[in-house]
């Protein structure tokens, strides 16, 4: 009997060793970046909605303009442009090509802009009355002046005569798309004819690793060279061999309150929660101090709009919280916090909130849900009491963050209703003068804070680990992963 056992074990070991010996070396060398979300959406840049997909495809597509890490917009597909009231004139960049080698023409630009307008993919484009292309010039005429129109021109320019964008996309960006294998990897390659600075790293493989522990192991084992959105605990466990670069996630994490449902329709209750929850303790305790505290629906990367004085508008004061609740008649308040369970930072934040609320005599419980359930029930169905999530800006405008709290906005899932806010929003959107518009947006932020629309917590830190010897990680005010600046040091 023992012999059989020994034989079996020996066989297994032999098998393990033998199969381990053979390694193929004919693979090209890849720089491997781990991403937590698969690019499981259409890859057509106009139709894509998944944040994780947009984040990566930033390297493949460009608009007439593109954002810079500093938050400015610079010409990309065009080489220069002029604005004359409602008329925007773009000169196409000389010699710019798509990934399939075909030069970009004015017709492609007209096609891309028109497609987004007619398909409703970029809502601001409904303001366009005419797009015209002539030679290497494109003119866009607006129905009404719009201060932040340029921000929407980051919309991707794609070839008009290409049908496979959804699965094999073609753009003008620094990297071209090579292949996608579901749940496995996405391969990108530097585009030789790129108009700008050519990427230093030629082959990039994005590996999909959803699981945080597996990701950490993959970094340590050498399978992965770079990963973003790490937690402070993960970073601590990483050891040497990696540089940690810190940026911001650029999202507004808050305990979002259902403003139309009792007791959260009472401003005193909302303020009591704001006094009871200590955002600094959350950041220090769970995130080891990484993260920027927030006081309204705006994060520091939009420095023009950010109001630091709102951060501590409600200074933590448990007694005040109790008094406010007593006054409002909710002394034994208890409610549920619905949290998308696959987002560990939100789960951890909620865990601390529950504990902090206990100190103020409030009994909160966590309801973990899947992300899709969250979208359909909490966000679309508005069936919730409170929830911890983060919202980012889809374009580089304050409007992207603030518009959703207008009482008539379809995305106003917390049901926020403030006449003053609606008034300010209307004025801001109609304003042509940038400085004045900025003031309106700031006033809106104040309105959200004063009414304690939500309990604002923080802009999460974005901790990126890069293998030592590689530099060039760049952070943007929007949610993108720019790979084109990476380079091996000393080469």
């Amino acid at each position, binding site marked *: 009997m023992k012999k059989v056992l020994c034989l079996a074990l020996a066989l297994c070991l032999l098998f393990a060793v033998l199969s381990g010996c053979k390694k*193929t070396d004919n693979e090209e060398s890849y720089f491997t970046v781990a991403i937590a979300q698969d690019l499981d959406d259409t890859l057509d840049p106009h139709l894509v909605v998944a944040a994780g997909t947009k984040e990566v495809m930033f390297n493949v597509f460009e608009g007439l303009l593109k954002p810079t890490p500093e938050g400015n917009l610079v010409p990309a597909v065009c080489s220069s442009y002029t604005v004359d009231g409602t008329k925007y004139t773009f000169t196409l960049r000389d010699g710019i090509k798509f990934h399939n080698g075909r030069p970009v023409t004015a017709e492609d630009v007209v096609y891309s802009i028109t497609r987004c307008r007619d398909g409703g993919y970029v809502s601001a484009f409904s303001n366009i009355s005419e797009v015209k292309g002539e030679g290497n010039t494109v003119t866009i005429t607006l129905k009404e002046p719009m201060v932040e129109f340029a921000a929407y021109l980051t919309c991707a320019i794609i070839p008009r005569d290409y049908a496979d964008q959804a699965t094999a996309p073609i753009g003008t960006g620094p990297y071209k798309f090579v292949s996608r294998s579901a749940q496995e990897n996405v391969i990108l390659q530097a585009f030789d004819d790129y108009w700008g600075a050519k990427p230093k790293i030629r082959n990039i493989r994005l590996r999909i690793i959803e699981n945080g522990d597996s990701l950490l192991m993959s970094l340590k084992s050498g399978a992965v060279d770079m990963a973003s959105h790490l937690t402070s605990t993960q970073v601590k466990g990483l050891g040497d061999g990696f540089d940690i670069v810190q940026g911001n996630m650029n999202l507004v994490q808050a305990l979002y309150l259902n403003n139309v449902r009792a007791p959260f329709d009472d401003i005193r209750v909302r303020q009591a929660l704001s006094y009871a929850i200590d955002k600094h303790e959350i950041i220090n305790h769970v995130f080891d101090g990484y993260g920027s505290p927030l006081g309204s629906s705006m994060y520091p990367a939009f420095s023009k709009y950010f109001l630091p004085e709102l951060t501590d508008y409600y200074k933590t004061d448990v007694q005040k919280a109790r008094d406010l609740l007593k006054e409002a008649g909710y002394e034994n308040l208890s409610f549920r916090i619905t949290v998308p369970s696959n987002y560990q930072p939100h789960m951890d934040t909620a865990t601390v909130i529950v504990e902090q609320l206990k100190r103020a005599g409030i009994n909160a419980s966590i309801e973990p849900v899947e992300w899709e359930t969250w979208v359909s029930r909490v966000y679309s169905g508005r069936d919730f009491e409170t929830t911890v999530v983060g919202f980012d800006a889809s374009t580089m405008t304050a409007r992207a963050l603030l518009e959703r709290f207008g009482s008539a906005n379809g995305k106003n899932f917390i049901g926020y209703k403030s006449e003053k806010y609606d008034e300010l929003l209307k004025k801001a959107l109609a304003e042509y003068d940038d400085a004045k518009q900025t003031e309106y947006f700031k006033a809106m932020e104040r309105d959200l804070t004063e009414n304690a629309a939500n309990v604002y917590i923080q802009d999460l830190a974005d901790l990126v680990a890069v293998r030592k010897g590689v530099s060039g990680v760049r952070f943007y005010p929007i949610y993108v992963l720019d790979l084109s600046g990476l380079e091996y040091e000393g080469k």
Partner: protein
Amino acid sequence: MRYALGKLGTFLVTMFLVSALTFVAFAVIPGDPATAKLGTEATPEQLEALRQEMGLNEPLPVRYLKWVAGFFSGDLGTSYKYNTPVGELLGPKLRVTLALSLMSFFLIVVIALPVGLFAAGVENKTVLGIGSAVNQLLMAVPPFFTGIILTWVFSLTLHLFIHGDFPSMDSNLPGALHYLFYAAVAIAIPRIAMTVRMMKSTADGEEKKDYVRTVYSKGAAKSLVMAGHILKNAVPPIVSFLAQTLAEIIAASIVVEQVFAIPGLGRFLVSSISGRDYPVVEAIVVIIAFWVVLAGTLADLINLAIDPRLRKGDKR
């Protein structure tokens, strides 16, 4: 022949049940492919348009019948998320999971059967005590935890494989199998322990039965009794148990594939359920159903071959 037809019928019925249940499940859980796809930037109009495009506004039975019709004409549908035919997506994943499952099953059988037989013959209390303690220990560790430990030892310390760098099965089959081996071990360990335990207790149970005592009292040697009588009666439950194990390995692979970042069916199933990508989920569920029926059929055949008396029970 009649048996084969019967089994085909069995498979069809099982498949009908699971596929219909899956459709119902998707009707019950919140979210549909449209909300899953559009996320937080969607307007109600966009959602409605997408639902129309995806055909989600049709009643559930209609959608189910369409799916069934498609299935029998060889069309598994198109993934809502990847815009790619389901068959094309699943092919590579199926190979990976099949290799992983068979490898763990192989490990279970090859290790558990001899150890179990050996254990059944052991009488020494001390050896039994220690063996049983070790067995308990192995049973008690969740596969995901074993996975982490294996990675620590074999990847981070001994560098025998690179965790997170699963080679493609096409270009580097030995490498891929080698990688899968560690995951297979993580799945197999608790199940080996369970099988050994199952065998030991079944054999013990048989040993105490009257007929065995009679044989003993007639002076037959212990090993002969073991081989001849006990085994024959102990085999059917063990075969059933192994068949059940074969069926359950797939479920265990869901978690282990996550831990080892292996692009297999289990991991794909989880992400497709969250993405409400039900053409993919349906296809995977049908594959698992086939697998389960196959395991059951094998168990039946083996048991019939060993103990034809069971046939009577089946025919009543």
